[in-house]
């Protein structure tokens, strides 16, 4: 598969009053054209930081290191002006809460016209026509195109945001918890839309979520983040059936599904990223930890074809 986006030793540090927060630390992964990559992790795992790095919206006091190759461009090196040209056109974003993206004082139609005209020199009427096409494809009737965002239901707003994100036909869509604020039936509807999109276009999708059920339903591959590090990466079937990293195992076991007979949790809490644990960052919570885990940083190596993990004892879990 042709690679669309490639992170090489990607690190992001935030400067805070308490010191540097190592939000992302040496991430290596690639996203293929047309592929859906799920990024899962708990609060503070760095999954949203990864999205922000791709979109060039990291907070001002952050430092980015390593490479983030998108087509010919290293996104870790470009300035804000260059990012503005790419964002919205080649890389688009949908958020958890559509209201953070939609301007409450602007008609739906004007959102589209503004976005289209910011990137392409087209006439007003051409832009409006494209807005109608984009919206009806998301089942938003043309009669409502002049309404304001608050006049729509939550699911409809999310569909408007997806239509808006896709109107310039980006090659990469980043969806950050796109269904978290929605009810389960509307969530399933939105996921169905995302799956349909995958079928009809060659767009790649980065789906950031804490919900492993969603990952299982829509992703091709999944990256498991823990405390800013990539714990494991691989095809979704392999990760769910044969996880290698103990964190992945425990995380999968903690899912509460309709088949749950017994509750499982992970002891302890995710670490403070100002002062992360030495060696493997998961060692204080890992039931299989050995003394060496506190000393050596585990390399991110392939244990099975296409399934690398960062655990010193990875081969014992094969």
């Amino acid at each position, binding site marked *: 598969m042709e690679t669309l986006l490639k992170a090489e030793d990607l690190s992001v540090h935030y400067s805070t009053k308490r010191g540097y927060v190592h939000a992302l630390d040496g991430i290596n992964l690639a996203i293929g054209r047309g592929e859906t990559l799920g990024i899962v992790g*708990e609060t503070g795992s760095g999954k949203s930081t990864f999205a922000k790095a791709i979109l060039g919206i990291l907070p001002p006091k952050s430092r980015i290191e390593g490479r983030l190759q998108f087509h010919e461009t290293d996104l870790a090196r470009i300035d804000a002006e260059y990012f503005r040209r790419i964002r919205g056109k080649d890389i688009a974003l949908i958020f958890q809460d559509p209201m953070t993206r939609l301007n409450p004082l602007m008609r739906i139609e004007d959102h589209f016209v503004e976005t289209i005209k910011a990137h392409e020199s087209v006439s007003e009427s051409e832009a409006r026509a494209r807005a109608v096409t984009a919206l009806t494809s998301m089942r938003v009737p*043309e009669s409502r195109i002049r309404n304001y965002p608050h006049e729509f239901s939550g699911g409809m707003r999310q569909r408007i945001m997806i239509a808006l994100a896709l109107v310039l036909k980006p090659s990469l869509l980043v969806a950050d918890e796109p269904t978290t604020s929605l*009810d389960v039936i509307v969530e*399933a509807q939105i996921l169905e839309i995302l799956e349909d999109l995958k079928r009809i276009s060659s767009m790649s999708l980065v789906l950031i979520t804490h919900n*492993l059920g969603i990952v299982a339903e829509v992703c091709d591959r999944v990256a498991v983040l823990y405390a800013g590090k990539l714990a494991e990466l691989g095809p979704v079937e392999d990760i*769910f059936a044969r996880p290698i990293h103990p964190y992945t195992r425990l995380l999968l076991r903690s899912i*509460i599904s*309709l088949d749950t007979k017994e509750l499982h949790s*992970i002891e302890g809490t995710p670490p403070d990223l100002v002062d992360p644990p030495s060696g493997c960052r998961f060692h204080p919570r890992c039931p299989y930890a050995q003394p060496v885990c506190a000393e050596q940083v585990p390399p991110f190596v392939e244990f099975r074809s296409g399934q690398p993990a960062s655990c010193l004892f990875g081969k014992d879990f094969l």
Partner: protein
Amino acid sequence: MLEVEDLVVHYPVKTSFLQRLFSREKLSVHAVDGVSLTLRSGEILGLVGESGCGKTTVGRAILKLVEPTSGMIRFEGIDVTRAKEADFRSLRRRIQIIFQDPHASLNPAMTIGRAIGHPLKIHGLASNDREVRDNVLRVMREVGLTPEEQLFDKYPGDLSGGQKQRAVIARAIILKPRLIVADEPVAMLDMSVRARVLELMLDLKTKYDLTYVFITHDLATARFLCDRIAIMYLGRIVEFGPVKRIYESPKHPYTRALLNAIPVPDPKRRAPKILPRGEVPDAVYPPAGCRFHPRCPAVLTTCGWEGRDFIDYLEERRLNPEKVQRDEEILGPLDEWWARGFQAGRKIGEEDATQLIEHVRSILTEAQPQMNQAVRDVSIRDRQITVEFHDPDLLGQKEVEGRLVECLLY
């Protein structure tokens, strides 16, 4: 232990002065619209449904945090809805609530120890500070907030989400209540922590002989935790019974839809889903008949088809590029159509009335057959075209295979 009988809670909709001046209609959100249930001592009863179904309002009404519009709530023989403030104090001691957001439930300027001990002071249940402190430390140990001596003087900001929720639970149990209403207690916690908080709730249930009302949108957690569940939709209970029966063979189409929509955490079991259309409608104007009928995959002719279902159908057709043009030509702009109760229609001007009525009849044959069959008449009178639907059948709860279901299928 607790009886809720025909509970109705309507919230008034805030309208502007001018709106009130020109409209006699009083608008209200039908949050809970006739809910009856019983809670047995020692059980975990789940109130399950999507946002806006009224589950939280039922929970709050039990604690008298909202005033019911009508109906009755009786707790251990006392009528909560009519209880005087003085009687209610002792009731509050026996019923406690845990909210979804532990962060918002704790005063950021109050130490954890003080927050947990606060109810003892309010209810005057400790003679001195020493006694309060001892009690708090004991409860902190019980909920796993350890080392308790150290955490006692910490502020909520120093704690993780899971720890904060433990503190909230500790504060709820320090009065040794009989009933705890837990409103989405783990929804805001990370997956790896949820299980521990749920386990804690189960432990405390045994230790303190508690009864829980567990309010959640998460059907998986409800299945694991609850003994019986009430599935709610737009202010009504649509299915109510033992967890085992409902999950093994759900009867109400809405229950089936909910169970079907849950993501399955197994990539090998991916399958296309049959989902209900659209979203939960506005609770200010709940649909006629069965409130789920506009979305129901198993809808019948008699479920409550009404004027606005026809308007929705017209709107839906405009998404179809093959139909939009002719519809626009003959039916005119959508905003000229009105819907009132079981009727929909529009004023007609100079256009060809026969063509209009024929087109309306013909598009009805292209609609869902149940909707088409529910039409009583399409007529033109006084330069108005009117589509009128039959009245729906009366809906009531029926016992079906060991649970109550409110659906005309049974």
